[in-house]
């Protein structure tokens, strides 16, 4: 056990060393996959799938310049075994697909294999590759992909095919005391929420009791395309009482054009059991 203690202490020490020197994942400074949401086509709130039904995987992608145009391909297989399993298809691919999108939300659909084909698997592994210059070539066994030029974005998500689990409701946030309207996009800085360059304001989220199922812990990810957040993650653990308000300090970018700049803010909720939801907001930073 002392061995374990040493390991964790070192891991935590490494984290502490990282905090001040390398920014976290809260800033979209390149095209990125920010999250994925698995749901049944028949019931968008259901995260746990049923063998033989159709399912949907929504990938949230973002870029500092706005919604990226991406070609994508995906492959599905039974999740690999192992306590330290790494994302790759050790077994046969049971579903696949490809396409293009210029939206922040890329939706793919697949057919969940029948129970017999699942061979007792409790999870499906969905591997996806995204390219900004042509269709990616995906090798599911190694989980590598090539684009015409540059690196492919590689992302994976597990889809549960046993038990029951619901996707949490989409998160609502406030900027200070002002609620933000989700999915609002405008031309230029034509959005409702405006702040001054360099302004310090909190992104506020309130975890309600309905956001989690019994025994669940829920994690909120807050990500922006500009400025600085004091952290990416906020948590609402199973033993914590509802409601719980969390405040993530945001310092708006200072160097903005006179016409202003739209900063996208993404909020993602995960229940650590495969359930997820996300919401997108826009804030204008203008002198």
């Amino acid at each position, binding site marked *: *056990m002392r061995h374990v203690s040493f390991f964790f202490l070192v891991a935590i020490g*490494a984290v502490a060393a990282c905090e001040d*020197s390398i920014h976290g994942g809260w800033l979209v400074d390149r095209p990125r996959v920010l*999250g994925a949401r698995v749901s049944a086509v028949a019931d968008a709130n259901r995260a746990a799938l049923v063998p033989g039904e159709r399912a949907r995987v929504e990938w949230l992608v973002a870029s500092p310049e706005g919604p990226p145009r991406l070609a994508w391909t995906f492959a599905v297989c039974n999740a690999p075994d192992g*306590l*330290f399993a790494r994302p790759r298809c050790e077994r046969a691919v049971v579903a696949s697909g490809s396409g293009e999108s210029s939206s922040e939300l890329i939706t793919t659909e697949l057919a969940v294999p029948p129970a017999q084909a699942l061979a007792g698997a409790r999870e499906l592994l969905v591997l996806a590759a995204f390219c900004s210059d042509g269709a990616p070539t995906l090798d599911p066994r190694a989980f590598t992909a090539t684009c015409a030029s540059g690196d492919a974005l590689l992302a994976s*998500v597990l889809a549960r095919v046993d038990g029951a689990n619901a996707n949490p409701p989409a998160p609502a946030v406030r900027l200070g005391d002002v609620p933000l309207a989700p999915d609002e996009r405008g031309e230029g800085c034509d959005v409702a929420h405006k702040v001054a360059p360099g302004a310090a304001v909190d992104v506020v989220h309130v975890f309600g009791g309905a956001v989690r199922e019994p025994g669940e812990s829920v994690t909120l990810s807050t990500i922006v395309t500009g400025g600085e957040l004091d952290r990416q993650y906020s948590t609402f653990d199973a033993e914590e009482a509802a409601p719980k308000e969390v405040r993530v300090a945001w310092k708006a970018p200072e160097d903005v054009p006179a016409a202003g700049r739209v900063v996208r803010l993404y909020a993602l909720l*995960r229940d650590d059991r495969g359930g997820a939801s996300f919401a997108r907001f826009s804030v204008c930073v203008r002198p």
Partner: protein
Amino acid sequence: MRCPIRVVLCGAVAAFICSSFPARADDPALVPPKLVESAAARDPRVGAVPRVVVELEIDIDRDGKVTDVRVVRSGGEALDAAAIASSRSFVFAPATRDGEPAAARVRYESVFEAQEPKPPAAVPKASVGGSALDAQSGAAIAGASVVVTTADGTTLTTTTDARGRFRIDGVTPGAARIVVRADGYDATQLDEKLDDGTLTEARVRLDKTRTPGELGATARVEAPPREVTKRVLDRETLASVAGTRGDSLRAIELLPGVSRPAPDGGPPILRGANAFDSQVFLEGAPVPLLYHVGGLTSFVHSRVLESVELQPSNFSPRYGRKMGGIIEVRLRDPRTDGPHGIGELSFLDSSLLVETPIHDKLAVLATVRRSNIDALLNSATSDESFAITAAPVYWDYQSVVAWKPTERDRIRLIAYGSSDRLALVLKKPADVDPALRGRVESTATFHRVQLGWRHRWSSGSEQSTEITYGREDGVGRFGKVAGFDYDVDTVQLRSEWTGVVSPAFRVIGGVDLLGNRFRGNYAGVPIPPGEGDHSPPISSQRQISVSQADWSWMPGASLEAGIRPVPELLVSPGLRADYNNIVGRGAVDPRLSSRLEVSDSTTLKAGVGRYSQIPSEAEVLRPIGNPNLLLPRAIHVSGGFEEKLRDQCSISIEGFVKWMDRVTTTTPDGVEPFFVNSQRGRVFGAEVLLRFRPFERLSGFASYTLMRSERGDAGAGLRLFDRDQTHILAAAGSLQLGRGWEVGATLRYTSGTPYTPVASSTYDATNDVYVPRLGRAMSARNPPFSRIDLRVQKTWTFSRWSLAAYLDVQNVLNAENREGFAYSYDYRNRDGVRGLPILPILGLRGEL
């Protein structure tokens, strides 16, 4: 053999028939008597005596019998009597006159020859030889008095020569006590069994007589070393090593073959072995740690140490269950010359040691220490990311009660223990992994109590038995990562017999039963591999839950012989047997070592042996372990020589190889059965140790190791071990400036440790973290590690006590010494994680 008395018959002359009367044809024919039977006269004299002649006149009758004897020329009363007594037993052929027997009178010279000192009688005799050495420096002690007292009360004395050597011949065989005294040293005695016609070698180490300003030391006589590599560290040398604050166990890291441990302060890496393949023993009982968390301080107060023995490979059969190396810590007896105490206060910790005799055969010692870090750190360290709610707190204690009811018996009761605690709160989830959040705390405590009895027979044979009970408790909470609690009861019975069949043949046999009753609960991420690649991010690992309560029994036995076919050669064959009930497997390992004293200053040594390791409980217990594991094993081969360059300077050079197979490792991706014996390994290298004391006030040592440690995972070729360090250079010295001032410096340079670079990463949307993709295993290295430590101490000595103030500065150049990397959330960027920054520690120590 020469006869002590020689009698010479020089002639017999009849007075009346002497040659002065020439025979005539008409004279009767006279024939003198002829001596036909004689007995030598017994010389009553002893020692060196001159040649003496006693002239006798003997009357002989017609039958040839002696009828009277008179002294004509005296040689002294005693010799006259001896000569007369002897001559009365003479028988002659009678003299004849014309063919008829006749009485006669003759002159006879009884000669008593001169004698040298009386040569040894034809009775058994033995010899004792050896050397007297300074226990600390190993330097020869010239002019030391050596007194050998045998069982019949005979006392023989001599003094050591310029090389510290002595030899006494003609000693009555059997039990003998050898007492060596020298000015400035405590007298030392050794009981040996001496055999007829055999030279018994004794290497006697004397400790310097303590003064209030010096560290105490107990004289110790060691049997000649059997092991190929056995570094016995003396406290006085190592207590002055800069950068250790006088902690002798920390100085182990400066010895050859010892790699820098992992930054978590884990056990030292001995000749390329995984830290957990080596074992620390305290008085023969395994202990769970060597250093407190962070590695700044060991768990034993240095002033309680008797010795620290480091055996980085080819260790004795008395140790088993491990295939790396051995560190044996021994505690000294309490002082018997009155009450003493030592109090110490530094920024790091405070300690108190007291000891006193109860009566002439019973003495006690106790020490306790507690860290001071929490007093400074709790108030200083708290920011928006994390807060230390309980800074590292450690404490430890040791207690020794020694009772010597007879000269041959020692009964000791030892108790010791240690505790470490750390608690902090990560106020917000880490950006690299949200699983790292919340309260992080860990407490680990252990206690041991040991009762030991040692008896020495007059023959030199010895028997020692220890029974040890230990208790270990721990609880840990690592946010959402893991939580555990456990307790372990440990029982060990260890008994060892040393039989001195003759000075040329000793047998050491031992039994060793170790039992652990453990109970524990664990929930969290899997236990990480002990060596090799990184695990995926904690969030991506599957949680496990274990609850266990069970016993593990590990009986062991050892047998070793010490054979001297010639006095200069010691051959030590041995066997070690171990068994573990959980895996249901055991091993019998043969081992062999030898030492050849080519000359008084040169010793050659070599060894080979097999070493089997008992897997840990975590590796074999269901549901996270594999109860079908085999015992990992290693073959150790080493050889080298030791050379005394001068009295105060010595060098040893050794080469070594270890081959390991069936090494336990985790399965790829952590699939069942989770642990397998699929790894192999190879370690090879050479090391040199130079001890020097060019003049009285300057002493130190330097070591260098050139080494390569490799591992091979299943289906892959050999790669570097993750703590491999090609070059390990260390040097330490201390200089006494006078007036109580002492300065010391330590230099350490090692190659950087290998690591597996991160090539890229993929996004895990389920857990909202990036998973690193690794490059070729251990294909990159951290920069070399270098560190200079300095120590300055001033001691004020008063009539009854002393006070010392010291400043110990670790990493005085504030070298970065990168230990690894902290990565950005997506592994695209990284920052080096630096090692220990400059750390000055000021302390005060008072000694009574």
